[in-house]
């Protein structure tokens, strides 16, 4: 596959790893995108670079950081008699206070898995007597696509198409992380496709206010390794944001996608599961689209579940590795996830559980 395979070349990877080892610098680097977490584990990069480079994962999985209450709201809507809830597959197994969407479907809720929000709109056209609610989860990579779909729905007069938005934004989360008292990271590996939309300038506060160097990179092994090399080199320079993924990221991002997002969404405070509430880190529908907003519907929600005993919060801040959580691989597995980090296949704990071998010293 063009523009994909070339960046997986085993020889390039060997050369890149040599270059990193030759530098001799060591560092603790954080990536904040579930797709990066998974790529690093899937391609076996973590063990390739340790102990010189320690790679930790941040709160980069928008599925994983969707709160219990938000899941409960989605489940409550799905259970309403004339409602079909359309969702990305990733959301099906996330546990809320009383089970997941998959559990709710088993109990009779109407839930349909889609690959694109446009499929949800098609369902709305097809099922005229139902209310079709699209569960909007994802960062800035996905929010424009959902916004564009909503605009299309409005244009096409699809009065029965609704959005339940739990979209979140990456830069505010990075600011919240970097502001934590004991947060110590030598550099950020930044998400390539979020940056395709928001550009490089959105992150400039990280070097300027917090002194943390950043590289925006793609998801193939060569891209990730090149980013790591650049971050190690940058330790000797004054911190900045560099773009490794120049084939997909412009400094200003994608203005058209940003303006589509802007037409439909406004910022709101949001609860990041396992972490805390981060101001202006979520997206809600603007009042002008109120007639498509399922977030405004009255629903009865179950009692929130208390502390489950998992240490997801610490994992999500890069403080501990998954193996250090007492529940990892014992009570908490991909089949029976307790905390957010295990629920999505791109959650930190799930990536470690699925790909990292036991010889590497994990549970």
């Amino acid at each position: 596959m063009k523009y994909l395979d070339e960046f997986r070349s085993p020889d390039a990877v060997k050369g890149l790893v040599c270059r990193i080892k030759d530098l001799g610098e060591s560092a603790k680097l954080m990536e904040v995108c579930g797709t990066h977490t998974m790529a690093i584990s899937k391609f076996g990069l973590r063990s390739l670079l340790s102990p010189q480079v320690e790679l930790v994962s941040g709160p980069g999985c928008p599925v994983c950081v969707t709160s219990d209450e938000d899941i409960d709201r989605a489940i409550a809507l799905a259970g309403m008699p004339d409602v079909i809830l359309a969702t990305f597959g990733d959301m099906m197994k996330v546990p809320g206070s009383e089970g997941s969407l998959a559990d709710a479907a088993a109990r009779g809720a109407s839930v349909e898995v889609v690959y694109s929000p446009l499929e949800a709109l098609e369902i709305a056209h097809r099922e005229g007597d139902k209310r079709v609610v699209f569960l909007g989860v994802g960062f800035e990579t996905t929010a424009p696509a959902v916004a564009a779909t909503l605009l299309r729905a409005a244009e096409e007069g699809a009065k029965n198409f609704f959005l339940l938005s739990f979209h979140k934004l990456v830069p505010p989360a990075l600011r919240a992380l970097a502001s934590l008292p004991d947060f110590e990271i030598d550099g950020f590996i930044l998400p390539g496709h979020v940056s395709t939309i928001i550009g490089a300038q959105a992150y400039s506060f990280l070097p300027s206010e917090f002194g943390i160097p950043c590289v925006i990179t793609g998801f193939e092994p060569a891209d990730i390794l090149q980013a790591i090399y650049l971050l190690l080199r940058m330790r000797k320079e004054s911190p900045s944001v560099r773009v490794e993924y120049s084939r997909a990221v412009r400094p200003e991002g994608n203005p058209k996608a940003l303006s589509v997002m802007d037409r439909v969404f406004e910022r709101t405070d949001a609860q990041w599961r396992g972490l805390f509430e981060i101001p202006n880190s979520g997206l809600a529908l603007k009042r002008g689209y109120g007639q498509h907003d399922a977030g405004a519907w009255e629903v009865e929600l179950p009692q929130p579940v208390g502390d489950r005993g998992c240490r997801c919060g610490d994992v999500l801040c890069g403080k501990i590795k998954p193996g250090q959580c007492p529940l990892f691989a014992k009570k908490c597995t991909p089949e029976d996830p307790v905390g957010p980090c295990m629920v999505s296949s791109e959650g930190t704990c799930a990536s470690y559980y699925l790909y990292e071998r036991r010889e590497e010293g994990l549970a």
Partner: protein
Amino acid sequence: MPERLISIAHGGGGTRMRELLRETVFPLLGEDVLLDAEDAAVLALPGDRIALTTDSFVVKPLFFPGGDIGKLAVCGTVNDLAMVGARPLYLTMGLILEEGLSFSVLEKVVSSVADWAENTQVRIVAGDTKVVERGMADGMYINTSGVGVLEEGREVSIKGASPGDALIVNGYVGDHGIAVLSEREGFSFQAELLSDCAPLYGLVQSMLEAGEVHSLRDPTRGGLAAALNEMASASGCAFEVVEGDVPVREGVRAVCEMLGLDPLYVANEGKFLAAVGESDAGKVLAEIKGHALGENAMLIGRATEGRKGQVSLLTPLGTRRLLRTPSGEQLPRIC
């Protein structure tokens, strides 16, 4: 003339049902023993060991590129028998039909069952028909049970792999699952992607004659990853698999990349995973490759001493990672 549809009465056990069977189902199956309409078929069996298996087929849509639920119902059960080295002899066919199913769909499916039974030299000797209300059964569900016989001394078991064994697959993985999913997700292909649904006993028979085959498993739901994990676990071996040696078609890979799926977890219906004694591996692989259903066979790894039940993948980058058994359905991701 209005289209003929299945009604609840067709499952009622009365005259409508007898008509359905005698005028539609039995003639398509061409099996005299069914006309006797006994409650059970009484059959002769050679030898003193039989293999018995059952499977239910609930595929949606009923017709997909490369096959249909009827073909699946025959091949799936025949292949389960083949995985223990048994020659398939008899099948039962249980139909659960949805009220409102058209006769023409029923006829197409039963014809397909008949065709593939003939192809695999299997007789359909017993069956059952039920009709359920509209909205249930997705058109139709089929259950087939199969009886096969084993040659004396033949032992092929999921527990059979041992350290040193070569791991072999007979061709491209992921075709079936992606062919079916692509129908639903609107993918089309330069070269049409077909389900690999096919009966494997003929190939298995020649393999077993060519050398020491210790274990066979068909990677249906859960894909090759499930089969590898099941075989490693049952036999108490560790498996090392070379990811780059597992054959995957370009189109299948592309769809998996776009939907966030892993071809190793996608269902197959005409493939097996074999553990073959080290010294016979070359011979057996050559035998498989000489067969139409094994042209693209590959040696993909080895059973080793090591952490029991652990399946490790050597990536094309030379790094190692785990290949876990799948948990539940693989859902398209965008994450």
